[in-house]
């Protein structure tokens, strides 16, 4: 039915080294993405490397808001939301992956009368959301690059890869 | 200076055409005309003197442009230029006509027609269909007047 094993993430040869720019110097996402890209064969680039493609983590925001209250108006369910806006620009500044937002969220119960463990669950969810965000960003880059590679290989006539 | 009036007026030019004895005859000077009277200095292309009663009453000058310089009683230097100048010695007024500009260290006046009464220091400028422009330099930049 047309499915085939995924082929390696083929970074376009002209992409060159990739530098990760992030608004928050302490963001683990930047480190995770750097390591993942290196595993996928991209060369890392230092912060001030001018002629490098830029994976720009324009903004990262966490939000933890109640989504349901009990009959006394006390929050009993929360949703932890993690949104990242990023774009991947080539060396000449043109967008390889256009600026877009990824929003992931996980719901968790936080019973008012039994608050023990809520903070612990939130920390675990935070770590899982970070791992999933790294995977989501890579998937989107992969999907765009796959078309690029397919397009280049077959002149974009038919997806014969 | 107001004392310029009583100073002798020297005129020279490349060549003159002036009926000496007869006050009513034309008296023309042509070719880098220069007039000096005390601190007053005028240079022009042509000068046409009108005399009466043994004295020079009016001078009509043209030039590209006519230049005039004079020192005021308070020591300030005034310079002016225009395409035509009418200098009436009796009333001590000089009329600059044709994109005239009169400037002093602290500013300048320009327009189609400027009337300057050297005795009273009074200036009138402007006419119906043309604008007069005055520029006052800010205090700190007046030393190096352009």
């Amino acid at each position, binding site marked *: 039915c047309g499915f085939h094993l995924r082929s390696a993430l083929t970074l376009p040869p002209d992409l060159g080294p990739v530098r990760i720019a992030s608004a928050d110097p302490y963001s683990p996402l930047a480190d995770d993405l750097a390591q993942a890209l290196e595993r996928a064969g991209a060369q890392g680039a230092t912060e001030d490397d001018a002629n490098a493609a830029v994976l720009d983590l324009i*903004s990262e925001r966490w939000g933890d808001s109640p989504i349901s209250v009990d009959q006394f108006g006390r929050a009993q369910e929360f949703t932890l939301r993690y949104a990242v806006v990023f774009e991947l620009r080539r060396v000449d500044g043109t967008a390889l992956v256009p600026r877009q937002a990824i929003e992931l969220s996980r719901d968790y119960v936080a019973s008012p009368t039994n608050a023990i463990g809520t903070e612990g669950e939130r920390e675990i969810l935070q770590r899982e959301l970070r791992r999933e965000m790294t995977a989501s960003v890579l998937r989107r880059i992969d999907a765009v690059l796959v078309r690029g590679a*397919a397009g280049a290989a077959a002149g974009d006539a038919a997806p014969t890869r | 200076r107001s004392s310029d009036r009583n100073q002798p007026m020297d005129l020279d030019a490349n060549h003159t055409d002036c009926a000496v004895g007869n006050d009513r005859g034309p008296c023309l000077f042509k070719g880098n005309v220069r007039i000096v009277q005390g601190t007053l200095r005028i240079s022009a292309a042509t000068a046409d003197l009108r005399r009466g009663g043994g004295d020079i009453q009016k001078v009509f000058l043209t030039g590209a442009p006519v230049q005039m310089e004079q020192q005021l009683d308070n020591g300030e230097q005034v310079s002016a230029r225009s395409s035509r100048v009418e200098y009436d010695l009796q009333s001590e007024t000089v009329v600059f006509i044709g994109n005239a500009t009169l400037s002093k260290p602290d500013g300048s006046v320009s327009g189609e027609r400027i009337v300057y009464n050297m005795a009273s220091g009074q200036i009138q400028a402007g006419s119906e269909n043309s604008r007069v422009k005055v520029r006052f330099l800010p205090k700190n930049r007046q030393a190096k007047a352009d």
Partner: protein
Amino acid sequence: AEGEDEENWGLCPIEDVVPVFPDAPAPTGDAGTRVQFPTDISGDLLDGQLEGEADDTAVIRGNVTLTRGDQFLGTDQMTYNPETGRYVAEGSVRYQDSGMRITATRAEGDQQADRHRIEDVRYQLTRRRGNGGAERVELRGDHGALIGSTYSTCAPSQRAWELRAERIDIDTAEGLGVARNATLRVGKVPVLYVPWFMFPVDDRRRTGLLYPRVGNSGRNGFDWRQPIYLNLAPNYDATLEPRLMSKRGVALGGEFRWLYGQGNGRVAGTWMPDDQLPDDEPDRYDDNRDGVSTEAERPGRNRGMFHLDAQHRLDTRWHAATNLNWVSDTHYVEDFSSSTLTNSAYFVSSDIGVFGRGRNWEASLSADHYQLADYTLSDANLPFHRLPRLVARWSQPFGRLLEVGVDAEAVRFDHEVFGGGSRLDARPYVSATIGGAAWYVAPRLAWRYTGYALENDTADALAEARARAFAAENGVPYTPALDASFRNRSPSRSLPIGSIDAGVYFDRSFRFRGERFLQTLEPRVFYLRVPYENQDDLPLFDTNLMSFSWGQLFRDNRYTGADRQADANQITTALTTRFISEDDGRERLSASLGQIHYLDESRVRLYAGEPSIERGRSAWVAEVGFMPDDRWSIGAAYQWNPKFRREDLASLRVRYLVGEAGVINLGYRYRRDPATGNDLLEQADLSFLYPINQNWSVVGRYYYSLLEKKELETIAGVQWESCCLAVRVVGRRYLRNRTGELNNALQVEFELKGLGSAGQKTERVLRRAILGYDRDDLYLVPPSSIPRGPVDDTSDPLP
């Protein structure tokens, strides 16, 4: 305090109170630099003195114009004294500078001192919307005083509101205006008299902080708050907010913000020395009111709250951060929340710590503390304080395959009711990631050691509980000797955790309606093996059952904290498929389905008597996310429990963006309580902001609990917005307090665009109630308009 959103003047007719002067040159420079420019005057006739003694003035007549730097002055006639710089302009005076445009009958002033007096004025601010008239305007450099003046941002033809003031001082350098003895007219009706009133005249950082908030409620009476902005320095500023509540007294709020090379911070507080509410309405605080057992005693008369959050960068790896909060009593949040806010927080947390990150390590030393802020709960419901907590994570890859690391945490727990103790939890592990782009197999073997040093009363309580349970279970009498046998001040647990995570990726490209998509198929298997060890002798400091979810399928423990490590012999099978557009990489649809097969019973439990997990299958977990375009966003999650043949979770969220600012949210949530098996909640939530046309928009929310057959919140509102005035009428029925009583509130709010809103700020309420009322809340960050600012964690403890 929140800054006002940028006003949109889109609805305003292009109509200038003071039309642009055609003959005026574009202003160059500003008020500060204008003295250095020459003054150029032009006119039809000039009559002046050349000598320029002190009293000599030049008179210029006929369509006179004067320009100097950013200033332009047009008049019929002007007398000007070059020596002193004094001038008088009469007849159709027109004045313009970088800040405003003015028409007047007469103006005089002194160019040297840059002081001007203009009479019978009509003015229009140019850097910001704002226009009006004045009997007299006195300008000095960038200060301007409008005497007997009016100010409004409305177009002359639709004068919806106007502020009339005896005197308005405008300081364009500071961007501030102060009005004195001002009366505010809406339409023709004088609505408000304010003796003193400060408002910004440009959109520098202070927008929105200075508007008085005026309200009226049964609890507070007439409620008037006037923020005063103190611009102390470029990198720190403060706001004071005196508040007068006619029924309760005076309170002072304040906030101080600072910014410096290594970080920033904010400290805010409110202090009310003598609150009359506890005396006026004692019944609010009685213990057993309406059957809700509250242990709160009546709050003292001095009430307040304190908040501090700050970040400080120590070096490229380490930074310190703190977030401290304190409230004076457990009724504070309810008594001081604006009556329109549903506040759902029940404790107030404070934390402070040092955090470090490197390429392969992460470490932090922090402490946190919780304070009760809800009088229907008690200290027993609070989590344990962690004073201090050390967390260290280190991992070292060996070649491309192997990775060795350790996760360690050492914490000293403390609790007012349940005592405390210290715990060390260390998990060295070795893991491998074998595979390529299309598949992976990741075995992982960890050893978990957890040891405690309990305080006496905690150990005693634990021993007693276990001894009683043992006595009950085996029908033996409960005796002190039995109790002593269970007593153990330093219990520990040590066991291996083995897991294998494996997955395969299948892709296929296809075209759908002309757009190229990549569909992925991702089967995944996760095997977990943990031996059983009885852990009833371990306390419960920070451990609880996690909400069963998609993430739970791949975790190595059913519990959050280290106090319980579930034994397991289980295998998870899961499948995910995604449809990703190949043009821009956006994921249009993703669907996942998974389940855990418990090969053996899992016997670890939180406390004696909790049912253990039997052999068999867990609930099915299904999640679907569907984002066909930028406007639609649908999210659904469903859990079906095959053993009891019933749903454990069913949630659906649909969001549709209407036009530029409209949004419709529809939500349904059902959740079963995992511990008891009965229904925990079943709620439906419809909320919308629907723009009918440019001026009218309708707002609404219907949040209903199907389980308790009761509305939790209902909002119905309409907003009429014109060029300079927005009127919002919003009715709300909401949970007023912890007794579950509903309260009706009707708010009428006039927002004088550019001047501020008189009346309770409804926007905050609507943003919380209707997700997406403010687009920023939707994606948390609107992709298009993102300033590269610091990350801000929007989970503030106090609503």
